[in-house]
């Protein structure tokens, strides 16, 4: 028994060490920095530690920003899952021998730089870009439509970027589904839609939850897409944090906002998982 225990501990050690060194320690550093203040050159001063940065973070000035971040992340998650589910379903059911190839094709864009792909969207959505060029060429519109620097562009870019995050967990979940269960539902006079709603969807719900989390969490922290595709009004909390670290060099305040973001995300995630696990899996 004891030998098993020590063996388990040894196996856990690398993972635990990784977690401590690369997550717990940096989190602690961020917390300590967030209690400090900045000196005139933008360095961090830790002489007097206090919670003044957190009080500042809770000022109403930042509410529109937080609302923006939540809105983009939520929309991105919803659209990603809505698009990813049919794709994952199709690959699983009808992929046949080419399943692996199709999955590789899904992952392939990730081998290109995220930033370059976002830049590509800029070229497509600009006033004299591809979309406007086509619309004007076909005579559908007279003047260019402002597509870039809008909410639409940001959600589009983020959905595009996070789609593989959504497709893979959904694929795994759908692939595990026993087709005989669906067949049984059909035998019991369920139509296609009813079979989907009562059998497939509930059984693949863990996959949907995983996809939602894997999309929402990075989406709320993405500052590249709103920066490149967004406009003056599409500011997100991630962009504010980036700006505080780099332009304003107010590291303590940026750390406070970052810490709040991390804590909120972790608490929300754990809470959601707990509730859903209880209700869905039973």
């Amino acid at each position, binding site marked *: 028994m004891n030998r098993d225990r020590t063996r388990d501990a040894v196996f856990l050690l690398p993972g635990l060490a990784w977690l401590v060194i690369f997550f717990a320690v940096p989190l602690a550093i961020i917390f300590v920095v967030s209690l400090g203040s*900045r*000196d*005139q*050159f*933008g*360095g961090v001063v830790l002489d007097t530690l206090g919670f003044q940065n957190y009080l500042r973070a809770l000022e109403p*000035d*930042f509410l*529109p*920003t937080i609302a923006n971040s939540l809105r983009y992340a939520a929309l991105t998650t919803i659209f990603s899952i809505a698009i990813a589910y049919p794709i994952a379903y199709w690959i699983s059911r009808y992929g046949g021998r080419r399943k692996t190839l199709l999955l590789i094709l899904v*992952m392939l864009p*990730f081998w290109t*730089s*995220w*930033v370059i792909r976002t830049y590509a969207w800029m070229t497509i959505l*600009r*006033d*004299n870009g591809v979309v406007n060029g086509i619309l004007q060429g076909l005579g559908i519109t007279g003047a260019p439509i*402002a597509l*870039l*620097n809008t909410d639409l562009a940001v959600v589009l870019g983020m959905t595009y970027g996070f789609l*593989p*995050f959504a497709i*893979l*967990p959904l694929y*795994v*979940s759908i692939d*595990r589904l026993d087709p*005989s*269960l669906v067949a*049984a*539902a059909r035998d019991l006079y369920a139509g296609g839609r009813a079979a989907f709603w009562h059998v497939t969807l509930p*059984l693949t719900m*863990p*996959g949907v939850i*995983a996809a939602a989390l*894997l999309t929402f969490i*990075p989406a709320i922290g*993405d*500052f*590249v897409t709103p*920066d*490149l595709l*967004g*406009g*003056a*009004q599409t500011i997100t909390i991630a*962009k*504010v944090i*980036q*700006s*505080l670290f*780099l*332009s*304003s*060099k*107010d590291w303590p*305040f940026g750390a406070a906002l970052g810490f709040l973001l991390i804590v909120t995300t972790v608490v929300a995630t754990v809470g959601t998982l707990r509730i859903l696990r209880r209700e869905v*899996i*039973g």
Partner: protein
Amino acid sequence: MSDHDRVPVPSGTLARRLAEERLTRRRFLGRLAAVGAGGAMVPLLAACGAGATASPTAAPTATATGTPGPTTSSPSAEPTPAPTPEGELYVYNYADYIGEDAIPSFEKKYGVKVTYDPFDTYETMTAKISGGNSGYDVTFATSVDVPGFLARNLVQPLDLSLIPNRVNLAPEWQDPGYDPGNKSSMPYMWWTTGFAYDTEKIKEELTSWAALWDARWKGKMAMLDDYREAFGAALIRLGYSVNTTSDAELDEALALLQEQKPLLRTYTTDDIGVLSSGDVWLSHAWGSDVYQVVAERPSVKYVIPAEGGIRGSDAMVLLAGAKHPVAANLFINHMLDAQVSAANTNFIGYMGPNAAAREFIDPAILDDPTVNPDKAAIEKLQELLDLGPDLQKYQERWTKLRAGA
């Protein structure tokens, strides 16, 4: 037992088993995707302007080799006795902010291998050198930052015996306010800030900063994503100094900028990109950037507004902890060479502080008021100065402006 596998009703055990197995697979793939995402989450990139679309005329090649000897204002002077530079040099600069032949001519002349790295944003550079040990020897700092860098020991004084070409500098650049006697920096290029607009889209003549607050151009305007510049524009419009530290004046400027925000399409440092593409008809812009826009879109016109604009410069600095100080000083000297400086100006379209270089600069550039405004226009320009701890007043209001509604 076998019934458990056959009954198509998700019982507790079966569902749990399915769920557990799914979780394992899912977690693995999820982690794989997260690692992929972690790698794909490339940190910041802000579009830095300066696409090399300038139309250079025949740039004079910098092959002038001055004779060693008396260092009067000859076009290129050599330090005496002949120095022995280290074999390598690391330079860190804005993208497309140097002439084509400046580095190759330096490499040939001194036999030094130069590694020239561009940075995408100024903040990237300051973040990198703030850590010390950046690995670079020379970089290009905005002049207003030079006193701060000196105070933080990020840059070290130059060896002026290796920089005899400094006599080429125009008199007003020999003893600038930010670095008396040019002991720790040498001016590189100077520029102005105003605004630019597409005369084809906006048919009237615009002369005032008020144009950037005009609701008629809603959604077609951009401001620079730079808090000193943005507040500078508002403060000039209100008739205050761009270096004010008065809370009342700054609050007024903030209110003005908040009024403007809903009318803007974007805040950007890529004024070249947004003007060239036509996304934006009217933009807060740096004059020499507009020189590059005009190459792509000739209808764009640059204006130094009637109320005034901003003047600034970049300076070459020697980083503290530089491993190749002799080569670095010689490089700075090389950039002050009249013909090298002129070639740089001809290529990137910025004016240099080099009086001796004027005879080699493309006359089209000398006559171009966006790059080389006349004395009357220069009088109206204010220079940004180092504000020390009061800079926080600007930064806090900028965060409020960007984060707010």
